[in-house]
């Protein structure tokens, strides 16, 4: 080992890793001759036990054990401290024998128990999803974020369930205020049973009445890593395959992980499409009520006539029609979600056929309404994160209500109110809706202000 540095490698490493919960240190051998250090979550304990722990007691002789360790094909001797750290974070075991350092390969690559991300599926890019085992998840994240700045803090929440909760962050980039707030809030959670990330998210938000999610709940380790690198705090939980990310702002809910993989132009296009989808799913039903019942003169004559013509057989006012169809659509979505895979398609086919064909022929709803409802449903599914998708599903009813009572005025009032409401929200002290596009020029100012 290099003689330039005054401190021995093992002490240096121990000091560097002092805050890491998954860093393990052991003295082995009959006379504690061997100093072993490794990251618990990154190494295979079976290998360590079989090839290091057992022989270290059986051999007894220091020189023999040294030779034994050096004989493994994966064993290396680090050139400097950086390399040492790099290998430790890869999952190597550091064995220090008589102030000589060996890096023993005991990398744990988890493949079993890791499923594919289903809820946030993407076209290209990594497919791994978080598992329900917290150690495994930390392994997944450590493997993607090989920096000693990545800190993990473990807590236990739940009087009965005793769920292990881990707070992950990059010590160099994280916003200390957010971190302290997060620690304090998780520490203050008093429940008996804690089983899912969504529950935890509910307990740690301060707002009494909330409509929009202020934290992302994700199942993708790559999203977690990406957000940690941005200086956010991630919370992992045992027994659930989801992580919580905070602080989260409105626009975060409209980024998919493959936006980065795409050509920039395509990435932008996809983003714009999502916002258009958001606008459509929120306002289309309201606009239909406005145009059909309040202000048919807004549209071109031909279109107004078209709507009126298709509504000719419908015996009740437009808002009844809208509510009926929207409700049916919600039922369909929910039904196809809960039903077992084998019956799922049946429900959609039956529902789609009956609602689409028969309802219009019977004169219960207009043709245009069917098209509109499908457009609303489809544009709702464009939103990449399902939490926001659910919120938007509810918000559109509020806008419809405004449209029913005030017509066009109600539409504008509700949209303006929505923008004001979103701007008034804060996620861990960060403004929830803010146009960051124009901030590029004044970066210094943003940091201060």
């Amino acid at each position: 080992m290099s003689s330039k540095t005054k401190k021995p490698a093992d002490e240096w490493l121990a000091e560097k890793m002092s805050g890491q919960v998954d860093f393990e240190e052991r003295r082995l051998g009959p006379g504690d001759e061997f100093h072993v250090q490794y990251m618990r979550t990154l190494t295979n304990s079976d290998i360590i036990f079989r090839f290091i722990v057992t022989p270290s007691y059986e051999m007894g002789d220091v020189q023999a054990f040294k030779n034994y360790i050096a004989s493994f094909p994966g064993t290396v001797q680090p050139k400097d401290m950086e390399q040492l750290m790099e290998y430790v974070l890869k999952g190597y075991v550091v064995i220090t024998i008589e102030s000589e350092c060996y890096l023993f390969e005991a990398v744990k690559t988890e493949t079993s128990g890791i499923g594919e991300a289903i809820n946030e599926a993407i076209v290209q890019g990594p497919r791994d999803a978080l598992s329900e085992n917290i150690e495994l998840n930390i392994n997944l994240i450590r493997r993607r974020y090989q920096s000693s700045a990545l800190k993990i803090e473990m807590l236990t929440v739940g009087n009965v369930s005793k769920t292990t909760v881990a707070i992950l962050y990059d010590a160099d980039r994280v916003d200390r205020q957010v971190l302290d707030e997060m620690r304090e809030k998780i520490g203050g959670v008093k429940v008996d049973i804690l089983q899912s990330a969504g529950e935890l998210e509910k307990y740690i938000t301060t707002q009494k009445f909330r409509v929009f999610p202020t934290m992302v709940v994700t199942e993708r380790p790559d999203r977690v890593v990406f957000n940690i690198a941005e200086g956010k705090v991630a919370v992992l939980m045992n027994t659930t395959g989801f992580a919580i990310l905070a602080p989260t702002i409105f626009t975060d809910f409209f980024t998919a992980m493959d936006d980065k993989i795409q050509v920039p132009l395509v990435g932008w296009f996809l983003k714009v499409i999502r916002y258009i989808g958001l606008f459509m799913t929120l306002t289309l039903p309201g606009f239909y009520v406005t145009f059909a019942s309040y202000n048919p003169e807004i549209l071109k004559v031909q279109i107004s006539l078209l709507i009126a013509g298709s509504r000719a057989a419908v015996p009740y006012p437009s808002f009844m029609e809208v509510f009926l169809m929207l409700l049916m659509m919600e039922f369909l979505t929910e039904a196809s979600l809960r039903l077992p895979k084998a019956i799922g398609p049946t429900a959609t086919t039956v529902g789609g056929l009956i609602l689409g064909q028969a309802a219009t022929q019977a004169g219960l709803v207009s043709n245009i309404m069917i098209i509109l409802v499908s457009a609303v449903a489809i544009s709702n599914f464009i939103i990449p994160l399902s939490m926001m998708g659910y919120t938007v599903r509810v918000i559109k009813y509020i806008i419809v209500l405004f449209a029913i009572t005030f017509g066009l005025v109600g539409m504008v009032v509700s949209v303006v109110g929505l923008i004001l409401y979103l701007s008034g929200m804060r996620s861990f002290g960060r403004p929830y809706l803010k146009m960051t596009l124009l901030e590029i020029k004044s970066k210094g100012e943003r940091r201060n202000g």
Partner: protein
Amino acid sequence: MVSGKYIYYLFLMNALINIINFVPRILVLMRFHGALMAILIGTVVGTAILFAFTRLMSRFQGKGLPEIFNRYLPRVFSVPLLLLYSIFWFGAAIVTMLSFVDITLRFISPDISPYAVMIGFLLLSSICARLSSESILYALETILLLITPLIVYILVKSLTSEGFSWDAVLQTITYLWTKPNYSAVAGATFIFSGYMNLVVFNRNFRNLKTRLLWVIPVTAFVILLVTFLVPIGYHGTVGVEDHVYSWFSTADSIRMELFIIERVLFLFYTTYLSLSLFSMTIHWHVGLELFKGVFRSRHEKKESKKGDWWILIPVCIVTLLLMSFMNQVRLAQMGQWFLNIRFANEFVLLIALYIANKRSARRT
């Protein structure tokens, strides 16, 4: 704390909103009696006030009018002044609300109850006025970014339309060298009043030094010319006075041939309604904060939101009562009064700030 760019947004909001606050009406009535001259004078005077005001306000970093007045002026002056300005800001919002309710009834839904529309406006402004100043500024930025392209589109559409008569515009310009009266100048300076909202929003600005402040007079001049001349181009030099809301009638004369909405009026109405709602909310917010400032003692620092509804509900009731005996003539009259008083009031505010500034300099 927010960056300096939000001053421009405050300005832009007022500049765009002037169309519904009876400014075009006053200018159009004065079109043969010095309206153009008033625009020129108004731009100069408005710019002067703007610069003086922002300079004075930048001396009091991070402080709003209530803090400044309570600290540096004797209580005999600070209380009535704050009360006056609070009423004044509520008044500004009320004028906007009343005219927009009138516009809604006239152009969009004649069969809806005016009280229903008014209650909708009041609810939105009252609830949203209680947000923090910072949040309101963020929201303002969002809405302006969404709306400005639409307004530019409407403007381009209106200037390129066949129905626009440049002759009428040129003829109006021949009346340039006429002496304007006070109300015309007062109307023309309304466009600059956006920065007046700084009386409360100054709390959120760290440094008011803005490099591009000259953009404001240029933009203001162009917007004023457009405000005044476009309706004349559509309705003719004489016919234009038949319209109370000349811009809405103008927008109704423009047609979008290749879109699902044919009449530009609806696009115009939607954009301006959202802008007006913002203006109402901001004025409501400023009025509320000033009013709370009356009761705040010299040393109390923390903002409290407890008593908000005790102020807002009476103001809402007053608004509804006012509406009950308002008709179009009275409303136009009130709008004009408002603009006249506002102009004089700005000078009073400047003087008061100047004195406060002197006293603060002496104290340190």
